[in-house]
């Protein structure tokens, strides 16, 4: 038998929301796809493969590896065939081959930013435009996408969240009985796929017929203006950015009615649409959030002031049935996960998405040059261009195509990776507000020049017994602007915690190909809290704290992370603690008690300039 047997869709236990979403997708391909957030081993790929059997899209399910490159995605020059044929041959990328099919991406949240942007753009346009390596084409690329991700590793890129219709949150835990049944079915299927499929053949046929029927009935499903308005109102109440979500919600509601076999949309369809389309994009949840906020009193003052300039529209919907629908939809999903994700989305809405959208990776600067240096990579297309005009001449003497050493062009990579400046600001003590202002001013100045060097900034504040990441690495002034203004001050000085946090950021930046990291520590005091014991303020053992700092310092040196300690203490003490700190970290020490942002910027830029010079590309 040529075709492998897939696990039947109807035999999958649990994952109700995901199954429902996939059925809606099969009914209305205009929903574009489903993003499924679930932990490992939760049948995501089984679901995706089974989807192909119930949908009437072509049965081609293409699996996209998370580490796919843009070349593989949009294609490029087929060098071998180009040379053999003497004419340009394009080898199509995955996006063109996917036309009319279904893409499955496991770990969709770890796609490279540029790759995610391509997929999102193709989803939006239904085509791929290619202007590269001598090719100028536009291919149709209409496909559905099923993406799976483990929410513990972060969300998919916002470009994808924007373009993919439905998002399924992790569902409740399966019961023991269900688990047993899952295992048993899995074993049955493994032992005898054909037999297992046969046993479920009728259910599969029925489902397929139901979907096909719903698909033809879809255009006749009625939906009132008021119902569309309800969904729009819910989207506004949830603070959703952009106007695409409404469109997806309306489609989902219609498809839901069609699936049930009704010719008009009813409340349960709206509910499902809110649950699958709107809630996962929510930035705020007015009432429920209030309940959650009461647990964290130190934030309530800020959030209250946020709540003030609400539009009338939103105030009005407080008491409307929309609220009711939202609450019902929330109840249907797992609230802890919802809050966790909302916090992330909210941070994104305020500060923007961390790193994932950054253009650095897109900047594979591929101009070519004749000169080779160490580790040069040959640029094929320019090399062929250089060799091509001589072929008629050379052919007489040699084989079909001759490339001489002088033809070879090398890729020139422009140093697109700048420096990541991590500002770690001491928020303990009375001068914290000043330091914060200095740091903000300085990072503003760094960002003003960021387009030049491709630098990024991040901001960590530390006080009490912990360090908080206030601004994830960014190049956007827009995001830095929305930095939280007031910040609680006082308490201990957990320098180590801040540095550990900074190290984590540095490591992430390395993964994202940002090789240079500089930590700028603004403090006036000494480290007096250990990082290890959260909740335990351990001020006593200074030796242990120092030992810990030295250890961090060693790590920083071995990772080649530059650090600058800026002492803001107003009275200069030559044996100051900040100087000792700098020594322990192997960083530079600068005494700038009353320096403005300009002064600090100049100081760190002089350190940074040596970094830039030493960085050989």
């Amino acid at each position, binding site marked *: 038998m040529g075709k492998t047997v897939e696990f039947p869709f109807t035999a999958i236990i649990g994952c109700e929301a995901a199954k429902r979403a996939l059925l809606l997708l099969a009914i209305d391909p205009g929903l574009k796809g489903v993003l499924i957030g679930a932990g490992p081993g939760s049948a995501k790929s089984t679901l995706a493969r089974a989807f192909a059997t119930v949908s009437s899209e072509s049965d081609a399910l293409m699996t996209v590896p998370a580490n796919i490159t843009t070349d593989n995605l949009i294609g490029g020059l087929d060098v071998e065939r180009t040379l053999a044929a003497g004419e340009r041959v394009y080898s199509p990328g995955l996006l063109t081959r996917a036309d009319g099919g279904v893409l499955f991406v496991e770990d969709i949240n770890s796609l490279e930013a540029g790759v995610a942007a391509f997929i999102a753009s193709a989803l939006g346009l239904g085509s791929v435009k290619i202007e590269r390596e001598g090719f*100028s084409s536009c291919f149709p690329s209409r496909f559905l996408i099923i993406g799976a991700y483990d929410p513990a590793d972060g969300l998919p890129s916002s470009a994808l969240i924007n373009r993919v219709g439905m998002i399924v949150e992790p569902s409740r835990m399966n019961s023991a009985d269900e688990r047993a049944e899952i295992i048993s079915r899995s074993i049955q299927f493994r032992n005898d796929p054909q037999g297992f499929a046969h046993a479920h053949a009728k259910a599969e046929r029925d489902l397929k017929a139901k979907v096909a029927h719903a698909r033809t009935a879809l255009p006749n499903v009625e939906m009132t203006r008021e119902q569309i*308005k309800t969904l729009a109102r819910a989207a506004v109440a949830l603070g959703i950015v952009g106007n695409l979500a409404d469109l997806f919600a309306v489609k989902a509601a219609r498809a839901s009615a069609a699936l049930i076999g009704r010719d008009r949309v009813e409340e349960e369809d709206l509910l499902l649409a809110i649950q699958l389309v709107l809630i996962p994009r929510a930035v705020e949840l007015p009432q429920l959030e209030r309940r959650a906020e009461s647990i964290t009193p130190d934030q309530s003052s800020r959030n209250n002031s946020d709540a003030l300039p609400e539009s009338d529209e939103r105030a009005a919907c407080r008491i409307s049935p929309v609220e009711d629908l939202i609450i019902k939809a929330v109840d249907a999903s797992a609230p802890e996960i919802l809050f966790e994700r909302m916090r992330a989305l909210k941070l994104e809405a305020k500060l923007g998405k961390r790193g994932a959208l950054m253009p650095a990776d897109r900047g594979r600067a591929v101009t070519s040059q004749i000169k080779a240096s160490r580790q040069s990579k040959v640029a094929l297309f320019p090399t062929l261009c250089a060799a*091509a005009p001589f072929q008629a001449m050379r052919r007489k003497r040699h084989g079909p*195509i001759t490339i001489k050493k002088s033809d070879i062009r090398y890729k020139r990579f422009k140093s697109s990776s700048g420096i990541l400046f991590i500002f770690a600001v001491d928020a303990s003590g009375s001068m914290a507000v000043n330091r914060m202002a200095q740091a903000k001013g300085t990072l503003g100045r760094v960002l003003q020049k960021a387009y030049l060097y491709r630098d990024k900034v991040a901001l960590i504040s530390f006080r009490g017994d912990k360090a908080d990441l206030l601004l994830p690495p960014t190049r956007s002034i*827009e995001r830095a602007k929305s930095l939280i203004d007031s910040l609680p001050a006082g308490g201990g000085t957990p320098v180590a915690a801040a540095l550990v946090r900074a190290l984590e950021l540095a490591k992430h930046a390395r993964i994202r190909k940002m090789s240079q990291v500089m930590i700028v520590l603004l403090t006036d005091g000494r480290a007096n809290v250990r990082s290890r014991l959260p909740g335990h303020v351990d001020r006593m053992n200074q030796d242990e704290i120092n030992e810990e700092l030295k250890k961090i310092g060693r790590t920083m040196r071995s990772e080649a992370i530059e650090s600058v300690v800026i002492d803001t203490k107003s009275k200069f003490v030559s044996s100051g603690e900040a100087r000792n700190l700098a020594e322990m970290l192997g960083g530079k020490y600068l005494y700038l008690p009353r320096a403005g942002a300009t002064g600090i910027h100049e100081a760190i830029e002089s350190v940074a300039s040596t970094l830039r010079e030493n960085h050989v590309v």
Partner: protein
Amino acid sequence: MKAKETSRKNSSGQPGRAVYPFTAIVAQEEMKLALILSVIDPLIGGVIIMGHRGTGKSTAVRAMADLLPPIVKVKGCFYGCDPARPNEACEDCAARQEQEGRLPSERGVVPVVDLPLGATEDRVCGTLDIERALVEGRVVFEPGLLARANRGFLYIDEVNLLEDHLVDLLLDAAASGRNVVERESISVSHPARFVLIGSGNPEEGELRPQLLDRFGLHTQIETITDLDQRVEIVERREAFERDPKAFLNDAKPEQNRLRHRLSRAKKVLDRVELDRGLLRRIAELCLALEIDGHRGELTIARAARALAAFEGRSGVRFSDVKRVAVMSLRHRLRRDPLERIDSGALVEQALEEIAPAVISPQRFAAIK
């Protein structure tokens, strides 16, 4: 060196796909006005549209392409040279004109060229036609996107993510109106006058000031929160997807009206008057906002004239200046990058200050 004629059928939009009509776009008035003005007067310098995802930026740009009045081109010229402007012609046309005198012309469409994600340098500025080089051993220049965009529009979505070396190329071409290629045994210079249209999401990074400065107008676009408008968006979009033909048919009268207005405005543009007093006021506005250089004044003056032409008037009024000032100056203010006040609000404030004295009731009645 001859330029190779390649297929141009995909120069705008998607193959065989209907384009959503411009007149059916709900709200977003500032963006629509900015696009309209830059169609009327290409010298304004194009538009940059910044806003969140899913707010219809690229829909609007693609819709604009559908409104452009036809132009006259030299027959068979890849660059679409203007027969009436021999001094801007490409080498081929210049040589032909020398020999043949008047060149044959034809009506053609204004190109709207997409600079897609991942475009490589060779496709942007053009390069050697490798096929002919391999087969015939001849060096033939294959024009790129800049050539195709000549006399038209170049659209860059996610313009703030554009690679640096491509930005450099664009800046050079935009400044000189020519594209100079010196690579892979090619040495070509050809006309590349195009209007830049860019769009992007401000949360994804800043634009280089030099590039930002190249855009005449800067508009911001927000998520629509008005419920009726949102419902309207959904209903129109659904109607369009369900039956594009019928939708386009319904939109036709209004589309044609707008097309007509645009080509009329283009015709009368040169005759629209802008008196010295008003020019002075524009200069005062830019002075009050401490704007470097004169591009601010020039842009306002051009945009205000285009607006007057669009409204069918022969003279510019202060109200025209008011309507175009924010989009002309938003990106030209020198300011603290972390300033929270919107640049647009600052421009409006300055406008209030330089506003003309209160109009007397008699005059007001006369205007009405």
